[in-house]
């Protein structure tokens, strides 16, 4: 498996650390009800198809990446820096 780091270019999967779903970027506001935190921390979709998740270029530039990929075809549809993400 290969990922294209927006800064470092095309790299082998071994350089990356996998964290989890994009959901981790949407941290509830301070004081949000516990149910919202439960959802943020634990509840995940498991789509057969397009998924966005977080990868850390640990052996490279130390940037967190938001990767859009297809879990069925394994196609990587896009990578962007978490620090410079659009949405």
């Amino acid at each position, binding site marked *: 498996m290969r990922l294209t780091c927006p800064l470092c270019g095309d790299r082998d999967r071994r350089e990356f650390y996998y964290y989890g779903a994009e959901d981790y970027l949407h941290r509830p506001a301070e004081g949000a009800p516990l149910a919202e935190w439960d959802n943020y*921390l634990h509840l995940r979709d498991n789509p057969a198809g397009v998924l966005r998740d977080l990868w850390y270029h640990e052996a490279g530039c130390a940037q967190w990446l938001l990767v859009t990929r297809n879990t069925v075809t394994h196609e990587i549809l896009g990578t962007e820096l978490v*620090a410079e993400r659009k949405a």
Partner: protein
Amino acid sequence: MRIDGKGLIDRTKPVRFRFDGKDYAGYKGDTLASALLANDVRLVGRSFKYHRPRGVLTAGSEEPNALVEVVGPSNQTPNVRATMQEVFEGLVAQSQNRLGSLRFDLLAVNDYLSPFLSAGFYYKTFMWPRAFWEGLYEPIIRRAAGLGSLSGKHDEGTYEKAFAFCDVLVIGSGPSGLIAALTAGRAGADVILCEESHALGGRLLSAGGTIGGVPAGEWVAQVVAELQALPNVRIMPRTTVTGAYDHGTYGALERVGLHKPARPNLPRECFWRIVAKHAVLASGALERPVAFENNDRPGIMMASAVRTYLNRYGVVPGKRVTLFANTDAARATARELMAAGVTVAAIIDPRPDASGVEECPVHVGAEVVGSRGRLGLSGIQVRKGSEVFEIETDCLAMSGGWNPTIHLTCHMNGRPRWDEDLAAFVPMEGAVQGLLAVGAANGSMSTHGALATGHAAAMKAVEALGRKVSVAVPEAEDMPYRLKALWAVEGKGRAWLDFANDVTTKDVKLAAQEGYRSVEHMKRYTTQGMAPDQGKNSNVAALAVLADATGRGIPETGVTTFRPPYVPVSIAAMGAGGRGEGFAPQRFLTSDQASRDRHAPMIEAGLWYRPSYFPKPGEATWREACDREVTMVRQAVGIADVSTLGKIDIQGKDAGRFLDFVYTNTFSTLPVGRVRYGLMLREDGLVLDDGTSARLGENHYLMTTTTAAAGLVMRHLDFVHQAFCADWQVRFISVTESWAQFAVAGPKARALVNSFLESPVELPFMGVAPVRIGGVDGRLFRISFSGEEGYEIAVPTRYGEALFRDLVARAETMGGGPYGMEALNVLRIEKGFITHAEIHGRISAYDIGMEKMVSAKKDCIGKAAATRPGLWGPEREQLVGLKTHAPISSGAHLFVPGTEVHRETDQGYVTSVGWSPTVGAWLGLGFLKDGRARIGEKVRLVDHLRGLDVICEVCHPVFHDPEGEKLRA
């Protein structure tokens, strides 16, 4: 038998080798199989289950029979295919899977027991009586099972792994592969051409014919010479591409040194990870056997293999050859044998409309129905209509048609397509992104078809790369491929499908009869295709037999899943470089040599090597040294290298704000020149790490992490920063490696520190100041992990060794000295300081009594989740101290005295222990249900593993100087 004037072997270079204790001669260019056949050795192995005598079947990596052990100086490699092993001077090989000699294998009795050993026999036979399994059946089966054996010694051989990148990867160097490589190579693309064999040319080395008007061999030589001259083409012979993976990644196994005597540093094998923008699969096709009664005798071979041995090695495997084949193309084998002066006794062609005109007898519309010859073929039975007759022969060349070698196209879960005309599976286009199958691998069986499709695929890649080239496709044979599918000949006896695993047509029919109708179930019930050849010779025929037995078509029956690797890959090659020193990086302290000079045993702490203790003359055990070092720190002064702690330099106007966000407590209010202990949570509310952070300037902090979590904390900080506050004025970088840092601890620490500073400083407890030592800028912290008055002195790493040696020398003049990890651990247990033994990932701030450190005034990572029900309260196991007078262990569990010891009555567990010379007792830290309310109670400590059962007193975790008077002195 060797034939004069034939073959590509170098007859000027004879090679001596040994097989089963006997010396033989071959030539450079021979494989072990060709050299043995040249020496008329037909019997080379025994089959897996029935121990049937077996000979060479093929001339390639798909060989199921001729599996041997190659014996090296420090290793014995089992299941080496004699058809792939090149002979070299001094090669030693032996047959395997036998009890006694190869000719008189005692386990051949299994063959007579075959009525009891049919598919699934072990599920049925060994079920009763139950008690017999462990004592009787299992040991016998274990001794009889398995193919080949190892030396039992450590393999001292060198193995290698490597990475390669290219524009176009060409897999196979037959006509389609060569023209593909030539086309891409001439276009200037970076090409890697992998060929499984030691010589390039593929089937062109075995077959005659012409290409572009010149003999095929000449054409191969011309193309190879041109490829070798192109700097952008890398030719990798002896390299099998073993798997196709995501995004253009391919695995490949190169046999680097297996064809020569072992040499130091010369890798035996190299496992390549090749990344290619485009790939051309020119892997050819595998000829398939026909199942008939006793079709497994030595001397019965694939027709194409007989042709290969003749043309490539100048070897004829018999004196009276017969051919049993269902295609026109296979007739070439008989014709070439006759041209070389070998007697062809007969051609048996099952097609009723086949030509009967050859220079030998031809039996059209006939089938081979049986064979005879105990250790080698001596005759076959042929049936034509209702008539059965015998033909005397010592070599039967058989062909049931060809299966395209489609394996790589199926590695990404692609399913192949059944082609009715070829009676074979062909690749589904696009099954592997960027890979195109060409030539016979894609069902184009003629040489012309191979050249045309190979060229076309390469042109596609060239265009996609934005390059241009014009290569003419040379003229070549374009015979139509005419066959009548023939999988198994009707008959009563055992007819083999999978030679390696002894699976017969009967087994497959039995499986179907017993309800194993799915091809995946049949495979597992019969073990069809589960031998080292992974069914390359037999899977398609087996599923054809299954389809027939279940009344379905082949496409409907389907194929089993093709998985990598295509050929067996040694674990040593895949894991090359990961042994010994290569297993993980070793991190060394600047004090490393000084510690070793003092005979300190080094222990691993993560990747670091740290001194365990510093033995003195007369000390017999580590405990004596440890006790002395603890007392030394408590009464005088000790020096320890603490450089392994993670150090992160944090700067910017928002640095304090950032620390407030990642720590539970507040750092923005910390005065410059002061240090504060901080607790860090994960977002799920459990403790991530702890440590001290110092404020070096208005916008400048230095965070320390534990040794264990340094990398983890960095990753966490990067995430929090990039995900939630990328726009803040804060920047941080690891400086762990930039500073060597030493703890100076004990009542005499202050005197020692002031003895080497250029100007002495008065630091309050938890203070930090810049200092100068011998002209070098350093930092002095007044912090303590021992409970004594303590300092940590940091200098740039290059001065670390010098400072450590100096500090130790000074300490020794004051009754002190260095202390190691054992003493450091006892000191911190006495003081109740936690490490990752305690904060192991399931611990909340509440559990360690630090819930008040979670500031109510601000948000921080983990704050919300830390208030979850279940993370606090009396049902939680809470940090306590344990005291007793008998040895105890970490990992032990705690129970109420007098209760039974089992899972339900478990009250907690122990995380750290040590003998405290200060308290004069065994001390422990651990977690006990509602522990803080139980101080003073007795608990029972049980460790089944070490046989401990001890009553302990529950204590406050701080045993030494609970008021902290020594720290603040």
